């Protein structure tokens, strides 16, 4: 480094130190009297206050409001203009001949959305976790271009769900890229977006493609936290790859797996934006999921039934709560902390 370079660097360091010292003095000037006033114990509350305020305004208050709306009727938006209807909305949701046959329910669309969401959660989470695990295991090895592949798998996570949906819609539509390819190879055009089964299949494929990188990264971090000595010891005892996987990798990865399972399941139950932009819930109601039902009932229909939408989201929140508690209990009883 030249003399001028050293001088410049020293000046930059000096400026930076001055800036941070000034900042610390400023914070101290506010915090010091505050600590004298509320005491050391009280400072803990001061530090969590901003977060609590954000949580209160944007999460707790809307939750309480949703709870109130679930017991009101009419189409007026403001709470003071909405008549109290007690359990009417919930009763209407659960008025069903056979819960497994949506057509026998008064709110058939709610039960279709519930059934679709149930199937989606089971299939999507299973496929997602399996593929993310396999990918993480591969990327944890010393393969050529490991850094490149890690980036490639993570890239779709960075894309907006609407962009993902539009890209895939362009690929899969009647005159889309995939059909053009199939026809160029002498095949028949496939109704990817107008057949219920195909649409459900592609919704799962796309959501796995878009989210897999995120969960792969979490699992990769879990895998890298497993000490290499354990594998060396197992190898010395004559354990093969499978035995190592079943007896070391999987048990030690379980806490991370539990996190991945809880997160992916919650996200799967909340599926909306991507599918809404991709299929709009169709064909028919084949890809209508719970959040879209809530959105359509409360906001997109010409008759805006906020009470019904709030009741449906209340039911959904309860299911999510039960699922999460169940998973955590399961984790605890099997010794995963």
């Amino acid at each position, binding site marked *: 480094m030249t003399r001028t370079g050293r001088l410049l660097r020293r000046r930059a360091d000096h400026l930076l130190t001055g800036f941070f010292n000034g900042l610390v003095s400023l914070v101290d000037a506010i915090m010091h009297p505050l600590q004298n006033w509320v005491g050391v114990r009280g400072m803990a509350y001061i530090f969590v206050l901003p977060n609590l305020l954000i949580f209160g305004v944007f999460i707790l208050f809307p939750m309480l409001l949703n709870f109130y709306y679930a017991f009101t009727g009419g189409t007026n938006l403001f709470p003071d203009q909405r008549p109290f209807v007690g359990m009417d909305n919930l009763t209407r949701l659960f008025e069903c001949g056979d819960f497994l046959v949506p057509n026998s329910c008064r709110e058939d669309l709610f039960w279709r959305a519930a059934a679709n969401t149930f199937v989606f959660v089971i299939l999507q989470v299973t496929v997602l976790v399996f593929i993310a695990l396999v990918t993480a295991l591969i990327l944890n090895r010393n393969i050529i271009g490991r850094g490149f592949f890690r980036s490639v798998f993570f890239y779709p996570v960075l894309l907006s769900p609407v962009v993902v949906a539009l890209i895939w819609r362009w690929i899969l539509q009647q005159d889309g890229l995939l059909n053009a390819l199939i026809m160029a190879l002498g095949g028949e055009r496939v109704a990817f977006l107008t057949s219920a089964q195909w649409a459900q299949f592609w919704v799962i494929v796309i959501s796995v493609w878009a989210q897999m990188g995120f969960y792969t990264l979490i699992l990769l971090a879990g895998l890298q936290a497993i000490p290499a000595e354990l594998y060396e010891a197992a190898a010395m005892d004559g354990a093969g790859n499978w035995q190592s996987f079943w007896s070391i990798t999987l048990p030690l990865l379980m806490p991370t797996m539990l996190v991945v399972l809880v997160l992916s399941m919650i996200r799967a139950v909340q599926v909306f934006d991507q599918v809404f932009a991709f299929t709009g819930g169709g064909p028919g109601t084949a890809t209508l999921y719970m959040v879209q039902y809530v959105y359509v009932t409360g906001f997109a229909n*010409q008759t805006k039934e906020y009470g019904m939408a709030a009741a449906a989201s209340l039911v959904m929140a309860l299911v999510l709560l039960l699922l999460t508690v169940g998973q955590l209990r399961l984790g605890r009883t099997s010794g995963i902390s």
Partner: protein
Amino acid sequence: MKKVLLLLALLVLGLTSVAAQDNVELRITWYDDGNEGTVLRELLDRFEAENPGITVIVDTVAYNVVLEQLPLQVEAGEGPDMARVTDFAAFRGRYLDLRPLVADAAYWEASFPAAVLQALRSEDDTSAIHGFPNQFTVTGPFINRTLFEQAGIEVPSDTNDAVTWAEWTDITAQVAEATGTPYAIAMDRSGHRFSGPAFSEGATYFNEDGTITMDTPGFRLMAETLIGWHTAGITPAEVWIGSGGSYAAAADFFINGQLVMYMSGSWQIGRFSNDIADAFDWQAVPNPTGEGGSTGMPGGTVMVAFGDTEHPEEVALVMDYLASVEALKEFSERTLFIPGHLGLGELDYQTDVEAAKAALTAFVAEVPKLNDQAYELQYGGRAFAINNPIRDRLTQVLTGELTLDEAIARIQQDVDDALAASGS
């Protein structure tokens, strides 16, 4: 010198801030079918030149935004000052009463259909003025005449005034087959679009006692026709089946020459003039005939002002200007819209496309044939409860989720629930 410059800068800053304070900014939420946004902008530019203190910003959005998001914005008091809307009832009670603000309320009453002005009013109100129709529309079918000529098949409406939907279905299928065209017939995915043909087939939704019955032989007949198109594969499935829960038009298939007959409406004329031009011969044909006659659906868009505006006087100035004979005449002539104004006289539509002029004449000829049920659906204030259930439940029949019987029962239930929820 520096002091002088500083003083000048302060003076300019002060003047601009005073000017900014004096300037009133109004917003219009608007959607486009064709070139009407451009024409509106030019009209507003002239208005702004004549009224230097008022700036009008046009927010052009997708039609679905007007249907789904605008009602929420207005309900929450966050709406624009004015908007172009099609669902009049969705905003009842939220409009601005322009009667005391406009220059001549009598002009408004004399110039626009009473049914439209009344459709905007709240219950029991018979005097308020909330807006004006800037476009009258009629639904009806278009055909690709070139394909008929290529197939050597005569257009049935050339010699027969009363062609049925069944006959059109058969003939367009023959034309499609003979010319290798992918699709024979299609209709926009819309309950409004479906209702005209259903009324023609004899359907009646509104009973004399004020109740609504959706299950009629005419409704079933038209529903079966629509289902038949899908079963036979002669209609593009993307329109009704592949569009989720939204409105969808089949216009692109028609414009691209992939469709023989397209059931839509007069608002497509402007777009067809631009996008098809003379690529092929297109023509508007009379609405098919059935037990209920030969009716389409009336409709159109209304320019309304909202009550939450902070500048009612300025809004009234803009509305007066846009509702004037001169502005509406130019607007209609340049957009190729059928005017909603009753006294514009003969219009000189600005197009060289002969098909467009002929189509306008054809749609105007459809107006006297519109039946009472069609008017009641459009202006009776209950369309909000009827149109979307028809669209969504019939789609469920097309995908095999419901039988037609189940779908009709569900439509009735949806209509009843929507009316009950809204207190109608």
